[in-house]
């Protein structure tokens, strides 16, 4: 982690501020295995019915499953519906 981020992380701990806000990190909410919400993304890298790759501020998140559908998409949020089998972070 870069020095600036380490400082921000310490500051967030001290001031009890959510780290995703301070460090500009994505927030992922997985609802069972049927829905995944990705907040603070940087766009789609790849998309087909069985896998979706979403670009993040650092790296990518790789979602695999069956019948994957993008329920809604805007600049901030992507909601993926379907039978999610794996969520993987890649640099």
């Amino acid at each position, binding site marked *: 982690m870069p020095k600036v981020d380490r400082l921000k992380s310490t500051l967030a701990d001290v001031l009890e501020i959510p780290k995703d806000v301070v460090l500009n990190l994505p927030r992922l909410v997985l609802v069972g295995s049927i829905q995944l919400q990705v907040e603070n993304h940087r*766009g789609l890298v790849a998309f087909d019915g069985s896998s979706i790759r979403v670009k993040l501020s650092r790296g990518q998140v790789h979602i695999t499953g069956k019948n994957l559908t993008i329920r809604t998409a805007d600049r901030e949020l992507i909601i993926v519906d379907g039978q999610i089998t794996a969520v993987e972070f890649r640099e």
Partner: protein
Amino acid sequence: MLSQRMAAFVLGFLIIEVKSDHHEGFINLCLDHDIPLWNIQIKNGVLTAYTTIAGYRQMPAIARQCRCVPRIKRKAGMPFLLAQLLRRKTLVISLAAAAVLLHITSSFIWFIDVTGTETIDPQKLLESAAQYGLHRGVLRSQLDLDYTRRKLEHHFPKASWIGIKIEGTRAIIKVVEKVTPPALEEITGDIVAAKDGYLLRLVAIKGTRRATAPQIVAQGDLLVEGRLYVQDQVLREVRAEAIAEAKVWYEGYGVSCRKQQLQLRTGRTFVQLVARVADREIVFKGRGQVPFSCYQLEEEVSNPSWRNIALPVEVVKRTFYELKQESRVLTREQAREEAEAAAQAEALSKLPQQAFVLNRSVDIIETKDADTVTVRVTIETREDICQFKPHR
């Protein structure tokens, strides 16, 4: 999101198909241009997505950039439904005619119900209601319910209250009939003593006297019998009436201990402010343990509300008062005063409102315990002890 979908339905939306090798690029460009997309799917290399009409109008530039052609697969939403509907003129005219007919027929009163009648004939009530403007087939707008109600109340004196309620095409006349209590004269009975006492004066207004003043009477003793006699033969039964004044005594006891342990407030407080939702409590102020070992708690609960809208949240303010133990020793006189006050309060609590106090006496009851003082307060009153007891 729901409001967004509802807005899309009201404003109309399109289901589009895009054939391209780089669907991701097309989606990213749409997101960059704030073109709303939802329900995005890819099947057999064809991207299907929902978008708004305004969004679709912005797409050609993006499509040129991505070298793809978005095609409308289906149009949906209110504007397209209406357009489809307006093409079928007969259907539209029929629907409009049905709506107008429904509106016209629902403007009349078709049914009149009467509820709550027992002795009043509902048929007569309906006839009178028709006379005063409420009948089958009358226009609702022509009804003057207050006038009809007042006239009906005047016409039926047996009714204590008449209300008319309109529910759609139905009028409901609700009647509450008068309930007359039986005349007091019809209930015969005796006058007996309501409590123990020393009878001072007895005036039999109606009935046969069965006690003479002065004399001691016990609760329930017959004072005036509700029967009139002629030569030892009962002439008739009456409702006895009398004035019976008697001396009555009320006692109260008070005990005071000379050595007392008191809990006094030190003046230090700890305040806790809590929002309570169902079983959960969120502490805003005063987290952690109460800093006193001995305390008295006072809780104030308030429900934030505006007009008749109450929030399902309770705001609780808990004030913890620190207490300290203190012992004190009363003199015998102080202890007596305290016991007397307690005894007096107990005796006074038994006194009826109309009692006239004649005398008050205080007795100290001697006990083996030197530290305890017991006092008895006796209050002597003059009051009416008549109690009516029906024959049956």
